[in-house]
């Protein structure tokens, strides 16, 4: 039986990829005050960002409930006896804990391997794609999980924040803030890999994009590049052009950033993910 691959909506995979590789996506929860929405199900990304910039209430996010995982695992157990479930890094969210609790509660005989990606956005997404391809090729549970872990270890995620306002609301920036001072407006470039760390800083968006690009391109043996934007598709295209010129032939995935990172990074956030080749693992 084919191993099935499960992830959550923070992996920022396109509907086509999800469809093509038979990936199952568990929606995370986005809340504006008392209202709660399932990411990508009850609320589209466009609707989310429109609301983010207009809403007086700061959105919050929460991991999908254990029940949501349980339902999905149970449904998949009709078709398979092995699931690899790859999720948002445990440093940022309790998603891995929810998934683990659901697995432990599962009453049907189906092995579920939970993979903590220690990543976000396409950093998870690339690991999920690798796993799904391995599954499609007939890989065993261990092989599929190993494929996911291998990519998760080789991926580096960088984000350029336009403003720190949203990250402050989320209370996630003490390590970054020391880099920024308080006298000039600074756009930070952060690295998301395990914990969040400060990588660089810029005064202008153009300068920040260039710095993030150079920081990303400094990685050796890049085999995959992901570019994500929240509300600025033209910037994503520009970054993609730069990558094509610097790394001809390397596949580029452009995606729309989902609400979870969007809520903490703010509307102008840009993210780049690079995956190094296996020799680097």
């Amino acid at each position: 039986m084919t191993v099935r691959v499960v992830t959550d909506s923070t992996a920022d995979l396109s509907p086509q990829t999800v469809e093509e590789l038979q990936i199952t996506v568990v929606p995370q929860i986005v809340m504006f005050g008392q209202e709660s929405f399932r990411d990508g199900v009850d609320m589209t990304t466009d609707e989310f960002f429109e609301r983010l910039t207009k809403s007086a209430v700061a959105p919050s996010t929460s991991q999908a409930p254990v029940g949501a995982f349980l339902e999905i695992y149970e449904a998949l157990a009709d078709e398979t006896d092995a699931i690899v479930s790859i999720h948002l890094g445990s440093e940022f969210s309790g998603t891995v804990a929810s998934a683990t609790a659901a697995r432990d509660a599962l009453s049907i005989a189906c092995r579920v391997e939970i993979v903590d990606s220690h990543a976000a956005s396409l950093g998870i997404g690339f690991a999920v794609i690798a796993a799904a391809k391995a599954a499609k090729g007939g890989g065993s549970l261990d092989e599929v999980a190993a494929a996911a872990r291998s990519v998760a270890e080789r991926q580096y995620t960088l984000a350029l924040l336009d403003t720190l306002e949203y990250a402050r609301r989320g209370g996630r920036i003490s390590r970054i803030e020391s880099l920024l001072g308080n006298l000039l407006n600074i756009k930070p470039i952060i690295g998301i890999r395990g914990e969040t760390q400060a990588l660089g800083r810029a005064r202008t968006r153009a300068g920040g994009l260039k710095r993030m690009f150079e920081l990303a391109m400094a990685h050796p043996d890049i085999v995959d590049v992901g570019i994500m934007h929240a509300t600025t598709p033209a910037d994503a295209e520009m970054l993609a052009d730069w990558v094509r010129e610097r790394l001809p032939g390397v596949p580029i995935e452009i995606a729309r950033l989902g609400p979870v990172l969007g809520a903490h990074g703010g509307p102008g956030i840009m993210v780049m993910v690079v995956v190094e080749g296996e020799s680097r693992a």
Partner: protein
Amino acid sequence: MTTTESEGHAAEGPARRGSAGPQVLTHSGDDLREVFAAATTWLERNAEAINSINVFPVPDGDTGTNMYLTMRATMDEAYQAGSDAADVVARAMARGALMGARGNSGVILSQALRGLADGLSGKARFDALDFATALEQAASSAHRAVRNPVEGTILTVMREVAVAACNRAQMLGVSLRSVLTSAVAAAKEAVAKTPTLLPVLRDAGVVDAGGQGLYIMLEGALRYLRGDAAALAPLAIQDPEYTWLNATATLHGGGESEYGYCTEFLVTGEGLDAEAVLERMVTLGDSVFVVGDEKLLRIHVHTSDPGAAIGYGTSLGELTRLKVDNIQAQAEEFARKVQAGYEPNLAPVSTVAVASGRGLEDVFRSLGVTAIVHGGRTMNPSTQQILAAIDSCPRDEVVVLPNNKNVILTAEQAAQHSKKDVKVVPTESIPQGIAALLALNLESGLRENAAIMGEARHQVRTIEVTKAIRSAVIGGLSVRKGQTIALLDGRLVIAEDIPGNAVRSCLAQAVTPQVSLVTMYYGADTSREEAQTLAAEIKKEYPPLDTEVVYGGQPHYYYIVSLE
């Protein structure tokens, strides 16, 4: 001066030339010291005149002051040499010059003195030919110190002086005095020729200030050898500003004060008694300096009670240019920042920035700079000060940001003499320095960071707005003394009557579609309201631009503007 006659093979002296030649006078280390002491005194007397030779009419690191302060450090060390041997004294002078070098002219001078010491190496006594040969070494050593030597500068003058001195010294039995006579004549001629060699001097209608400084030094030495003692009497306090500069530089160059506040002000009144004021100030703290006359006194004190100092000042007359800096708060603030984790937990290399102005120093600190050297356009720091800052850094790899064209050479000299691994990123302005500091890559080491930061400094353009210190015509632009002028990346482009207008006229030349952010650091003589009004006008004129107004507190410069 004492001279001794050579016995032909004096044990302490160099070999004599010409077995049957006439008597050759040789000189000791003491003589060398006195000759240079006279050169230094004469330089001090003429420093203001040299300062006034400034190609750009901007308040700038003054060549006369820089050369004099360099020579003063040179002579301090010379008197500590603890030997009468010429080579020992010369070596001590070279060391003093190296550490005390300020500004480009000071660095070149220090390299020349190193060459002179090399030339006199192994000679306890020297004669005229030895000295001339050493001058030749001095000239080539100075030439090597400059990356892109330019004709029409102090380097040209030095070379011509060495040639003339050597030619003269070839003649048998020539005295040091006649060698110096030739050297002075050659210097005078070479200085007069500098405008024909360097178009920027010709356009400004001036000679090279560094060359003039060298000429003055040689002239002072010659006056001494001629016994012109009257000309070399110690300088009376006649120029408060100038004396002030020297004195406070020394006070701040030294160790930490136990008192918390650096307090400075001017008192205007009648019958002011500097002595009495000095006595009173000494009871309030240390680093006291009082200068002026009965109508105007300038007062500097480090005290834990600035209120008492100011109160006393008010009782004497009207106070102006009042400035109180919290020395300890600055130190504590820095310590807090260090503990907060930027340095050394995150930064792989330490950084040293040169800046003056409370606000600008705060900006550098808030961006995590490890150490700040006070100074900038109007007070160039010495090699020693930069070296001390480098040594105070917790990391062994250090990047130095000079933030001024006239500090780059000093910084490079400090870098060469530090035991640490140091790279100078040649930032020429405060905005370039901030851009470079922001580019510091937390994942990279020294070399890579120096390259990244060096690249980043080119990503900003700088506008500096100040007051013309003299009338001039530069590049077809006519400037009146006292008029507001704007420099775009160091080039004089605008003369206006109002600082805000100068900024706007300059922006009209500098704003391109690539520019998205204008940051204005307003100086000590500009109010926040003025700066904010100007920012609003700029925003109206260029809607796509973001503007930021930041307190710089820099002296003499109404605005320093960064375009990126």
